[in-house]
């Protein structure tokens, strides 16, 4: 067997390797030619191998202990067959009756896909997050992008050494751009508002609602309007608030507020009542239905969770003494 791939393995990687695992479990304490070969080939890895072996044995035991009993297994099968037999009688008629509905949903699907595609072509080079989800993706040049909930980023096709690196963003993202030696290797973030040109830096871009907020944490970036004219070279701590072709700039702003979402929260401080509601709707993919007008006067707490719907509902309930529920998956109702 070719062992080359194990050359740089750590204990974690060994224990995650299916081949390694299978060998450990099959030999169970006895001599394993695979392990011996591994230890001989990479003497410096013996400790890692030992530790990985221990992890594998324990993890396997953990999963084995979770397995259900034979009785449970049989009981579920029996129930499936019983229900199958009783339902079987009506099956055929039902399919026919629902034909129009089926046709309609197929149509709906096509339309949705089309709408989605027309906004931004979705291929292998597109990363996206759904509602209440955050994710971090490495880019081909070694840069890192953290995507906030309900956001999409599309990458340009070329990422070779020295080539211009370009991404298109919808939603909100935080970038840690890998610095390149040659001044040619620009990193550009396109939005539906301004374009941001970068040379090795960490910054946040938020394109939600009609404004685009750009916050620079480290390094330098150039902000260009949608006609490509340079608006400003931003310094660390600068915030640009861009809308309708113009931008307001603020220096030394509090980074905590703009990077809060990386911790799973967003700030309501600069948002109006309607904007907070729009934000919640956007993040969780729900429509808010508020039947308690006093909420407007009381205002929102300064931070709300971006990836925990349950926590959000609990906050509403505890803060305003209301009942907050999700109805039909898509409506957040407060009464």
């Amino acid at each position: 067997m070719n062992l080359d791939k194990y050359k740089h393995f750590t204990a974690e990687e060994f224990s995650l390797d299916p081949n390694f695992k299978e060998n450990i479990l099959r030999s169970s304490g006895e001599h394993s030619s695979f392990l011996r070969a591994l230890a001989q080939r990479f003497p410096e890895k013996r400790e890692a191998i030992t530790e990985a072996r221990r992890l594998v044995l324990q993890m396997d035991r953990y999963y084995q202990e979770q397995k259900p009993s034979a009785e449970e297994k049989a009981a579920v099968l029996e129930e499936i067959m019983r229900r199958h037999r009783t339902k079987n009688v009506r099956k055929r008629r039902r399919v026919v009756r629902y034909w129009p509905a089926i046709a309609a949903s197929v149509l709906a699907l096509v339309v949705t896909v089309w709408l989605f595609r027309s906004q931004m072509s979705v291929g292998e080079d597109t990363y996206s997050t759904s509602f209440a989800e955050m994710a971090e993706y490495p880019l081909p040049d070694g840069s890192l992008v953290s995507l906030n909930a309900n956001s999409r980023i599309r990458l340009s096709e070329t990422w070779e050494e020295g080539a211009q690196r370009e991404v298109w963003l919808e939603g909100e993202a935080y970038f840690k751009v890998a610095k390149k030696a040659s001044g040619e290797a620009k990193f550009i973030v396109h939005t539906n508002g301004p374009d941001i040109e970068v040379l090795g830096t960490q910054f946040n871009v938020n394109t939600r609602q009609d404004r685009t907020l750009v916050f620079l944490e480290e390094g330098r970036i150039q902000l260009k309007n949608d006609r490509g004219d340079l608006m400003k070279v931003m310094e660390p701590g600068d915030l640009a608030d861009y809308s309708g072709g113009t931008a307001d700039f603020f220096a030394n702003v509090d980074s905590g507020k703009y990077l809060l979402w990386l911790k799973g929260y967003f700030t309501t401080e600069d948002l109006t009542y309607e904007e907070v509601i729009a934000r919640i709707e956007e993040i969780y993919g729900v429509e808010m239905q508020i039947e308690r007008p006093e909420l407007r006067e009381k205002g929102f707490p300064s931070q709300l969770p971006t990836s925990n719907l349950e926590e959000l509902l609990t906050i509403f309930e505890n803060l305003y003494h209301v009942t907050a529920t999700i109805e039909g998956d898509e409506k957040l109702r407060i009464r």
Partner: protein
Amino acid sequence: MEHPLQSQGRAARRKRDQELWQNYLERGEAAFSELYDSFFDRLFVYGCNIVYDETFVKDAIQEIFLKLLQRDRSTLEIKNISSYLFVALRNYLRKELYARANKRRHQDRYLETKDLVEEPDMDIRTGASIDCSEALKREIERLPKRQREILFLRFFEGLDYKEISEIMTVNHQVVRNYAYRGMKKLRSNMEGAYPLFRSWIAVLFLLFINVG
């Protein structure tokens, strides 16, 4: 020790899954229980690594198998039955969790939120008599949801990162990172717990490698 599930390697298991599925497509109900037999345990353990409610998981498995059984076999286009079943279970659990989060929010918070609830922090260092696997269990249950799920699919099912990324609709690089991070967390937490045990085992094992 015999591991009924792990005794076959993943290649063999994959082949067997495929055969069972072909069999079902050809023979229908008569071949259903064999298919069910081969998947029930795996789906059950998978489900239990997503939610902490065995009854809920069993109900979910019942639903997805029933649905499969009631579909017209001639129109089924399932290339990979294990992926299909894992995805079906996953989607079902998630959908139900969402609905339940509303209804039951006040009664039981154990669903879905287990990794948010701080457990009383027992000092595992002093509990020399605690079983190792108990400690591991606790560590696994403390992992973020997705890491737990990925570890199961990778470790127990032996899927490759691409397959996992398709099941969970997460980028495969992220899957890889999560798996690594999860394992790292388990390892470092376990390490602190049993320094003595660890060195003892290490010596034994090194001996056995050298002798062998």
